């Protein structure tokens, strides 16, 4: 049993009715006048949708911003790879959408494990994001009449998703990148590319800077500021194989955790139902096929076990199986939402069919996503126009033509709903430290709906943090710029260089990747799509073994004081092991099933996730207590005042 802390959590939810909270907050928050903004420095780590939009907006307001990324350009952040779209409650389709409905769908989609006030605010600012992006020249899809087009995504019965072909993340990120470039040209933002944050510096209990390593020279450097913002994304690469980019990592978040910021709901990891299946042991990552494909594609496996066996043996072609022998299991189980059920539901349903022996590829771990019916209904040209780039991508990887035969897909780790705990102001439990985008835990509860990540990243960066951070900075105007010669900086830098020296000195025989793969197997097998008390206890034992292996047998070639990719990966892996443990602790503690967290002991007779609202309607915040120690659990109770909490129903 986890040790439970008696700390009382203040999430700083403003007073007043739900729909007026954000308005009230903005009306009463403290501001910083323009002359004082110039005197205040803000470090923003990360240049994805959240980081770039925050850095650009804070720069535009007049703050002095230092923006860091590990890639060679801010435009490479992994937000760039988001395909499908961005939700906004514009109701342009006149199909009954509203701020309330987007709020409701998001809370329900998150399986009632997110804060009402945060989610309502997210829905409230969603429309302004689209306005901002259009003003930046983001080329969203349009109808012939010249107005913006929409499509549907999982977990919604309205059409509220804005998109730019299958490259929405790219276009939104390039929009934010252009806003960032404008601020760089104005001298308000300075961008540090190929820099990796390796520690957070705290002075008198407040976040006052970071230690970062220049990845080209290997030099460890100090940066001071009045506030620090973390927008470094999620920790899906704990599993080694995921849809994340190779460099995506949870290290910045974990450094904040080690310095006192609570880590919330680490066990909520999203497994995306439509990814290209694993093909071999040399594979480096999994490729996502956009959820938008479920608008027109139909998911199926054979009805007859003998057909599945023939497919697995390569003795039968999917097109030879007649319609009456196909089991469209999502349409069968969830008639109201069909192929557009939320991601967690679709992933578990695929696993259920494959576990029962109906998988369709040589490993038995794949289902079909078929466009035959859409092509019959719409013609190949329309399908090509909607999904052409995704089909090309599929064909290049899988070497089959999805216009002629069904795609094969399987669930893969995609997004992490858990992250650094933040209050309503997006401030962590460390004063002066803020977390935005996927790096925080706030808005998606136990499961994120499709097209909501882009919305949340940009909401935090453009329209929430620029307000709330002022409330903190307003009493910092008298605080002079900090010298990086302060003893706290010296100590933090020494801790980093000592850690690097220790890693370099192991001089074992194993490469970083080979150990990371072992970690990935432990996580997928024991902390994956279906978890049990037993599997999680096994995971913790095996994670300890992986950690021992890391410290005894790791080998990093080259030197620390120069470019060293293996060293970069080793530092991240060390943190992934710690995150893996946090995920297992959290999953073990949460004796219920909700959203992306499925405990086999807790399911309905029909195999659906069974929540326990009486005992688990809380945010699980984990507080660091020292290396090798079990973290402490702090509970933030979730109180639903405006909506009725119920069992999610996508059946009717």
């Amino acid at each position, binding site marked *: 049993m986890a040790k439970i802390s008696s700390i009382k959590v203040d999430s700083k939810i403003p007073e007043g009715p739900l729909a007026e909270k954000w308005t009230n907050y903005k009306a009463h928050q403290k501001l910083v006048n323009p002359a004082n903004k110039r005197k205040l420095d803000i470090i923003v780590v990360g240049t994805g949708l959240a980081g770039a939009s925050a850095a650009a907006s804070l720069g535009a307001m007049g703050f002095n911003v230092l923006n860091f990324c590990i890639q*060679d350009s801010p435009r490479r952040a992994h937000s760039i790879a988001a395909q499908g779209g961005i939700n906004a409650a*514009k109701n342009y389709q006149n199909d009954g959408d509203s701020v309330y409905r987007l709020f409701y769908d998001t809370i329900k989609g998150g399986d009632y494990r997110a804060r009402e006030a945060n989610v309502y605010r997210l829905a409230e600012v969603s429309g302004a994001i689209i306005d901002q992006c259009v003003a930046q020249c983001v080329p969203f899809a349009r109808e012939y009449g*010249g107005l913006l087009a929409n499509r549907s995504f999982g977990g919604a019965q309205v059409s509220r998703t804005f998109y730019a072909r299958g490259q929405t993340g790219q*276009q939104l990120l390039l929009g934010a990148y252009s806003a960032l470039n*404008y601020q760089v040209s104005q001298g308000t933002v300075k961008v540090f590319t190929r820099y990796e944050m390796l520690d957070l510096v705290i002075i008198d209990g407040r976040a006052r800077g970071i230690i970062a390593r220049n990845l080209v020279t290997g030099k460890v450097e100090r940066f001071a500021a009045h506030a620090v913002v973390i927008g470094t994304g999620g920790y899906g690469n704990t599993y080694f194989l995921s849809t994340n980019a*190779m460099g995506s990592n949870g290290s910045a978040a974990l450094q904040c955790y080690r310095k006192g910021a609570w880590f919330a709901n680490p066990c909520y990891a999203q497994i995306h139902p439509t990814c290209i299946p694993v093909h071999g042991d040399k594979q480096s990552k999994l490729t996502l096929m956009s959820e938008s494909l479920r608008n027109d594609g139909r998911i199926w496996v054979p009805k007859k076990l003998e057909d599945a066996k023939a497919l697995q043996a390569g003795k039968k072609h999917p097109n030879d199986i007649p319609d009456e022998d196909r089991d469209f299991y999502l349409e069968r189980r969830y008639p109201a939402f069909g192929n557009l059920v939320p991601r967690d539901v679709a992933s578990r349903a695929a696993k259920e069919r494959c576990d029962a022996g109906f998988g369709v590829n040589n490993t038995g771990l794949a289902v079909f996503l078929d466009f035959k019916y859409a092509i019959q209904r719409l013609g190949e040209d329309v399908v090509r126009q909607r999904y052409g780039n995704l089909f090309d991508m599929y064909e*290049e*990887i899988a070497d089959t033509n999805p216009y002629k035969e069904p795609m094969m897909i399987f669930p893969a780790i995609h997004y992490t709903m858990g992250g650094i705990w933040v209050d309503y102001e997006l401030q962590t439990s460390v004063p002066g430290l803020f977390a935005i985008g996927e790096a925080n835990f706030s808005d998606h509860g136990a499961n994120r709906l499709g097209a909501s990540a882009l919305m949340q990243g940009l909401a935090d960066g453009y329209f929430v943090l620029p307000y709330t951070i002022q409330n903190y900075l307003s009493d910092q105007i008298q605080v002079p710029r900090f010298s990086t010669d302060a003893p706290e900086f010296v100590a933090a830098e020494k801790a980093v260089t000592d850690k690097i020296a220790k890693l370099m000195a192991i001089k074992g025989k194993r490469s970083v990747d080979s150990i990371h793969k072992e970690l990935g197997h432990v996580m997928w097998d024991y902390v994956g799509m279906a978890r049990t008390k037993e599997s999680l206890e096994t995971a913790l034992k095996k994670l300890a073994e992986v950690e021992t292996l890391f410290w005894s047998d790791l080998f990093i070639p080259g030197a620390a004081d120069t470019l060293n990719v293996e060293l970069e990966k080793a530092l991240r892996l060390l943190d992934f092991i710690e995150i893996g443990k946090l995920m297992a602790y959290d999953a073990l503690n949460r004796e219920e099933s909700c959203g992306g967290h499925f405990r086999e002991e807790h399911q309905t007779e029909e195999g659906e996730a069974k929540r326990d609202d009486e005992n688990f309607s809380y945010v699980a915040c984990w507080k660091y207590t020292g290396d090798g120690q079990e973290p402490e659990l702090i509970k933030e109770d979730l109180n639903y005042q405006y909506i009725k909490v119920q069992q999610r129903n996508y059946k009717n």
Partner: protein
Amino acid sequence: MDKNISFTLKVWRQRGPKEKGAFATYEMKDIPGDTSFLEMLDILNESLVNKGEEPIVFDHDCREGICGMCSLYVNGHPHGPATGATTCQLYMRRFKDGDTITVEPWRSAAFPVIRDLMVDRTAFDKIQQAGGYVSINTGGMPDANALPIGKDIAEEAMDAAACIGCGACVAACKNGSAMLFVSAKVSQFALLPQGKPEAAKRAKSMIAKMDELGFGNCTNTRACEAECPKCISISNIARLNREFIKAKLKD
């Protein structure tokens, strides 16, 4: 199922920007055809690390063809022999048993080598900072549907906006010109009403920055278009030239 192949790999290795580089030769055995080109380099790097050697350094990140980070010059082509694909989207089934495969970094005066196959492309960021934006702050924007934009115009802008900023156009060009990259951004903004007010200024300042950073001029060889992983059309260069001339005439 794809067959396994064996081949010889010649890889450019260079310790730093000022140091002399040379090709190193590696024999690769039994690589499955469904391995991506970068996964093949991962396999090689794993074997180098296991021998106590330093791995080959190369840029890569998303491995799904959208981040623009990967940048290998394979057998004389930026991003290798496949058309409309980045290096990370290249699969070994494209090669034959017994082949010799040559891998080099982007070669351009404006993209100095950092190490091995990794180059410095900050010049691209600098060009964008010179005008690749609409000069607006956050908030207070008109409703997104206030201004209708023809579907064909939006589609054309999207074609140009698809550029991933990888630099293959520069690597392919005998003059080391960045015109395709610059023109893609200038076109996207010039086509859309929100970008029009600054179109002239943008074309001039981005071209001036490009010249200043040591990129060459365009002589219409169309190598950039042929090698672009996103098939960006050189008609964008024509539009850039028109915008540039219009701007100059106004001076």
